[in-house]
């Protein structure tokens, strides 16, 4: 299954090569493939047709970077992207080009002072343990600047769910790959972007390069239907279908785009929900402001425990998100682009 392969690949922001290679292999023969200087992968179909659409999904995941060595051979690390320090302790990782196995370590509970036990261990007091005896041995395995990615196998769980790492946003990548296998009577460029988690960096240059008439961002967003949150505070709910973004810190969905998504979902009886959080950012922030402005919307797969070593998604949601993206393309083929307001 493509989603499992993508999920299990290492691809922390700035080091998306392994993910990109899987996608290139998967999509060879389905369009013109190109990789730009930042590492964004473009798959273009139907060049020269009108209108020109861009679909994007970011390939990168959050993780760690090796910053230095202890004499003992333990690695000092920095976070790459937004991670809650509390989820790091005792998690397996794979480090560097050779995917050296390691574990995130900390001072053991027995040696912690009572006040230390009350607090989460901050990244400064965490290290990655490769199981070596000295700095010299560690230096033979990894270098400063090497990335450490969470290591987790993708597994089936419960009622048509999957657990695994980096579903944010390999779930989106897998959807985009499936969409690109179909043909549509328009110019379609799928872009697998880099460095979203550290500031939407790949998407801006990608949108500048493609300059589409309309863009759709395929994402993964928090499902927070867990104890301790009110119903109104559930960002999204697992199993309730693809999530439509109203706005976030980087972007406000234009009304015509929101109407297009809702109309399409209702026409095809695809369940959908609105994302109830208006903060955080996605590639849409950069894409919508490229050139003279681009009509953009975001469709997300709801997913629990994102930005952690193991997350959980519902495959019905994934399939419904895929269906919605394809149906939106169909709506545009049949009804044209949504109209911008003019006064």
């Amino acid at each position, binding site marked *: 299954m493509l989603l499992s392969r993508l999920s299990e690949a290492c691809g922390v922001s700035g080091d998306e090569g392994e993910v990109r290679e899987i996608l290139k292999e998967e999509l060879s023969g389905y369009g013109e493939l190109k990789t730009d200087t930042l590492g964004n992968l473009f798959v273009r179909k139907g060049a020269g047709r009108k209108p020109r659409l861009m679909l994007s999904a970011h390939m990168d995941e959050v993780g760690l970077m090796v910053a230095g060595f202890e004499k003992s051979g333990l690695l000092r690390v920095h976070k790459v992207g937004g991670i809650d320090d509390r989820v790091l302790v005792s998690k397996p990782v794979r480090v560097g080009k050779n995917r050296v196995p390691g574990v995130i370590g900390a001072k053991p509970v027995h040696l912690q002072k009572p006040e230390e036990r009350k607090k989460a261990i901050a990244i400064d007091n965490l290290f990655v343990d490769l199981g070596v005896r000295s700095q010299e041995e560690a230096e033979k395995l990894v270098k400063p600047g090497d990335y450490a990615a969470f290591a987790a196998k993708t597994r089936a769980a419960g009622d048509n769910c999957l657990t695994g790492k980096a579903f944010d946003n390999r779930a989106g990548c897998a959807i985009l790959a499936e969409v690109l296998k179909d043909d549509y009577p328009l110019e379609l460029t799928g872009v697998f972007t880099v460095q979203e988690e550290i500031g939407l960096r790949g998407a801006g240059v990608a949108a500048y390069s493609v300059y589409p008439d309309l863009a759709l961002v395929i994402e993964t967003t928090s499902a927070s239907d867990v104890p301790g949150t009110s*119903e*109104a*505070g559930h960002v999204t709910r697992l199993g309730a279908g693809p999530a439509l973004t*109203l*706005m976030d810190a*980087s972007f*406000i*969905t*234009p*009304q015509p785009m*929101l109407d297009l998504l809702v109309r399409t979902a209702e026409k095809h009886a695809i369940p959908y929900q*609105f994302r*109830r*959080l*208006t*903060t955080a950012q996605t590639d849409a922030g950069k894409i*919508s*402001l490229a*050139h*003279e*402005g*681009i*009509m953009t919307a975001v469709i997300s797969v709801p997913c629990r425990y994102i930005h952690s070593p193991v997350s959980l998604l519902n495959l019905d949601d994934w399939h419904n998100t895929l269906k919605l993206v394809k149906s939106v393309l169909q709506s545009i083929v049949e009804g044209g682009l949504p109209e*911008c*307001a*003019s*006064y």
Partner: protein
Amino acid sequence: MRELLRKFSEAYGPSGREQQIARLISEEIRECVDEVFTDTLGNLYAVRRGNGAKVMIAAHMDEVGVIVTFIEEKGFLRFSNIGGLSPYVLLGQKIVFANGTVGTVGMEKLEDIKKLALDKMYIDIGAASRDEAAAKVRIGDIAVYYRELTIAGSRAIGKALDNRAGCAVLVNALKNLDRTDNEIYAVFTVQEEVGLRGSRTSSYRLNPELGLAVDVTPVGDTPEPPAAMDVSLGKGPAIKVKDASVICHPRLKELLLDLAEREGIPCQLEVLQSGGTDAGAIHLTREGIPSAVISVPCRYLHTPGEMADLTDMENASRLLKTFLTHPLEMNKIFPCYLT
């Protein structure tokens, strides 16, 4: 100016949903410019053709607001903010949606008022159930303060003077503009309050030689003001030196000061610690665009009781008009840069 401000202030137009205010402005300016058009994001452009310098003047037309994120079973609306909006200011306010639905903002029981936050608050539109509420308001709909403009002497009190005061100044200047060689692009921009977004795409599109933003500035003339700054209501438009988004081009700033002095227009200098304006986005567009800002001093920003002085606005409009009809010869303004 007073009636223009009343019309603009009372209009609906939060960031991302500027159609209604844009339509009003469009109707006002259609007769006095050569062309009016819009773009993907909803920016409204008004053009006066000419053979001289290509100048872009930006006045953002969006205002802060609240967006519905959830409708409760009993018909209460949960919401989030669009732009900088204090929960303390919002509490108890009437707000209005694009379709005219009015609501009031309430809060859950709180032990400590210091814990007031938007997620403890809700909008009540008088609906008794989710279905009844959903018939009037959809998730994603956006509301703004509901407030009529009041005139108190030379001063106006109302909502969204940030930046409908700037819009009124710019429209007034366009209506009274004398003949000029300058090619003038007045842009009523969108989504300034959420990050200078409309000015970024519109300045990229136009690629002007000069940029000028017309916006409001906070003042330092109230008791224990939020920021120490030497700008007062009633002392004329403020010529911005800097804010957190831009250091205005010194030559343009001086040109504005010279023109104000020549015309006998009172003005003041604005040094603003925090906050930004459209000039922040414009001056970094493409290869860089020299930019400046004319500000209307305004008290109580982002509240429904913002206050500005109509005389300041008249003077801002005069200064803007003088600037736009001045022969803006680039080699004279920037002798050291362009030789």
